[in-house]
């Protein structure tokens, strides 16, 4: 390669470098999706640097809208927690990073005063006691959305 060729290529290489450094590295794997699950609510915790979304099946969504604290057999919940980071494009905001944990709750039986519940963590780890996590998740209520459109 001649000196002249190299000199001609320098601006091109420089432009390529500038372009690639501006481009984000996408992380579609951070999008959580599970058939049959809808959004119930969202929360974040600056101390833990996490942000979470609670999903649920139709029974769970209905329960989260209900003021009664009882739970019915068949309710399923997923609390998805992401690590949180500063938004690279807006100082003043935080955004979810990669998924840290997914917690799963299923109400197995509601015949007794204390429903039978299965709780597990299929993705990541959670250090709090399962009882505390179940209490937290069951305490979350549905988001306020505008309603009443024709």
């Amino acid at each position, binding site marked *: 390669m001649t000196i002249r060729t190299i000199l001609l290529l320098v601006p091109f290489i420089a432009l390529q470098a500038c372009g690639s450094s*501006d*481009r*984000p*590295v*996408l*992380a*579609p*794997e*951070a*999008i*959580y*999706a599970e058939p049959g699950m*809808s*959004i119930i*609510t*969202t*929360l*974040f*915790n*600056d*101390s*833990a*640097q996490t*942000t979470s*979304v609670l999903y649920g099946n139709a029974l769970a969504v209905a329960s989260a*809208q209900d*003021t009664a604290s009882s739970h019915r057999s068949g309710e399923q919940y997923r609390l998805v927690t*992401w690590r*949180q*980071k*500063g*938004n*690279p*494009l*807006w*100082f*003043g*905001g*935080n*955004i*979810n*990073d*990669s998924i840290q944990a997914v917690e799963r709750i299923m109400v197995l039986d509601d015949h007794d005063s204390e429903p039978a519940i299965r709780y597990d963590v299929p993705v990541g780890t959670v250090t709090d006691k399962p009882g505390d996590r179940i209490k*937290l998740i069951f*305490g*979350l*209520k*549905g*988001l*306020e*959305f*505008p*309603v*009443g*459109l*024709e």
Partner: protein
Amino acid sequence: MKRATPSRSRTLLLAGSLVAVTLLLLQFTSPEISNPPVTGPFAGPDSVTTIFQHACYDCHSNESNIRWYDKIAPVSWKVAADVAEAREHLNFSEWDSLSRGEQVSKLWYIVNMVDQGRMPLPSYTAVHPSARVTDDEINTLKRYVTALTSPPKPATTTPATHATSSPAASPRTTPTSINGIAYFDDYKNWKVIATTNRFDNGTMRLIYGNDIAVKALEKNTINPWPDGAKIVKVVWDKQPVDSLGNVHAGKFSNAQFMIRDSKKFRETGGWGFARFSTPQLIPYGKAITFAVECYECHKLASSNGLVFDIPTKERSGLQYSIR
């Protein structure tokens, strides 16, 4: 060494004289950049005012310090036009004409423009190096705006009360933005592509994407996004932090729509913007030009195809600021 022939010398002399005379005559057309009275100046701490003065005031105030070389036509034409446009967007000498909310909002925008190196304009700092803003100065600005926006005080006794859905109101007609974008709630069945919270304005958000938008993210075809992509950002007020450190979504604030149609919305980067505020879903914008405001701000996210909130991997070298 070759010597110019007499005829070539005469041609060069004539051309040079012509250019000189033209430049001289152009000076009579040079616009004057006046400094109107300062009616309500920005009044922040000295450390912040000093930064704005050396980096912004030449264009964004009535205290423009126009250098001698900026007064030479045809450069002066461009300088005059830039100053007029800059004062139109933001004038530190008329800062008091903005409401408190507008001032805070502008300050966050300014910090982000400076943080991303978009302001002062690189073409300006190339000629006026004293206008450059150092990293230390950017941090000073960040600390200032952060202190301006105090977070809600922590709840000390009881956990936050969670919001519940509004009771069904009577049916109403579909709210429609002035640019023709009508509110819809299909987004509730879409995937959430990101979740964000803002300490600059006390809100938290879920960002939904339709199938076309999600596929574009999966295939990395977001520069530009494909036509048909739709993104809806739903915004709630934050509740005070509870005893576990959690912050929950409170009242519904607004829903912001981005509809990709590169032909229909060509003037706003191929995106149609709409915002519907309060549970009554009042459309934002009294004139169709409102979307230009949205577009101007979204240019900060040009690397993401004008979409601020998408899932990305953290790259080494990027400085994230987490509060």
